[in-house]
């Protein structure tokens, strides 16, 4: 499958948040403003790509030949958790401002469904290493895109007349619903 196709599918057509419903917790929690969204998006992109580069060879050169594929879930999530610990450590020492502003959401990257889903997808879709990395970048940027979009919407919502029964979180989901409709329009984009 050619790389551009993989990338565009991951970014838009099969957007991880708006079409596949993954990574909703950080989506609702971190889309408060655009800068937080970008920060979270970049952190997630970094972790996803490194996680791919570590888990793909681990699965194909260790688990598979040794007939240990049933340890996939255990091994992958531990790799991601360790990576996030490393990122936390690095940020705390070198970029303390970002570390402080991300707060609890930094360790929560471990439980980001999207990252784990990407590592599983790489295996189930039979990608080679390059395709896996391209896919990982596409998905992570798609995640960031959806966060930035919702952050923009939330900004407008601050001054909008919202019906009482939708105030608070419900309006966020309703807005996401409309964003999802827009993204469904991408489905004919390729071929």
């Amino acid at each position, binding site marked *: *499958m050619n790389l551009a*196709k993989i990338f565009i599918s991951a970014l838009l057509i*099969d957007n991880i948040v708006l079409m596949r419903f993954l990574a909703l917790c950080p989506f609702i929690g971190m889309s408060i403003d655009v800068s937080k969204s970008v920060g979270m998006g970049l952190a997630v992109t970094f972790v996803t790509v490194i996680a791919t580069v570590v888990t793909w060879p681990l699965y194909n050169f260790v688990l598979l030949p040794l007939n240990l594929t*049933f*340890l996939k879930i*255990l091994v992958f999530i531990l790799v991601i958790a360790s990576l996030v610990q490393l990122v936390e450590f690095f940020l705390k020492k070198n970029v303390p401002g970002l570390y402080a502003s991300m707060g609890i959401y930094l360790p929560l990257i471990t439980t980001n469904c999207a990252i784990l889903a990407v590592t599983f997808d790489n295996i189930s*879709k039979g990608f080679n290493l390059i395709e896996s990395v391209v896919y990982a970048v596409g998905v992570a940027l798609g995640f960031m895109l959806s966060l930035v979009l919702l952050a923009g919407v939330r900004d407008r919502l601050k001054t909008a007349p919202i019906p009482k029964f939708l105030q608070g979180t419900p309006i966020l989901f309703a807005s996401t619903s409309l964003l999802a409709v827009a993204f469904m329009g991408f*489905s*004919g984009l390729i*071929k």
Partner: protein
Amino acid sequence: MKKDILRLGIALALFAAGACAALAVVYTVTGPTIAGHEREQLQASLKDLFPDADDFIEVDGAIRSSVPDVTVMGSWKAVRGDATLGVAIRASAASYGGDAVMLVGVATDRRIAGARVMTISDTPGLGANATNPAYFVDKAAKTTFPGQFSGKSVHDAFEVKNDVVAISASTITSKALTSIVKEAGVVGSAWLEANASGGSR
């Protein structure tokens, strides 16, 4: 300090070992059952395409796809006694929500013996109707989407909206599945030509 890290390491190692051991046990119990399901499903599908066959022999890697969009995953020769009835080809292509996998039977008379959708992850109510036994592309004849390929000559155009009826509002799915059947027909009949004598054009 060192003692602490050692303690942590040992605790982690013990839990990890315990988890792996427990999982190994569960895997040995469930593994054969899971493999069994796949085998059964394959056998049932092969029989569905070639009801007269009494055996299916795997054709090792000889059949490959000739177009980049379709991947041939496996092929089985359907035999009855000494005679070859045809070849069943499992192939996949990218569809709307991920890869779709089909099993296509090509008979020795160069016609499609049948087509079955094995895996599809498209939208329920739209693309997923490919596997819906109650969804008909021809309501009068009660033909399902994959059903319309039975008896079709491999030399046909295989064009959606031309000689193939699409699933309504699911052009992408319809095109993907059609391309699989078409390619299976092409490589299947080529293989039969080279490996199985007889059969009419």
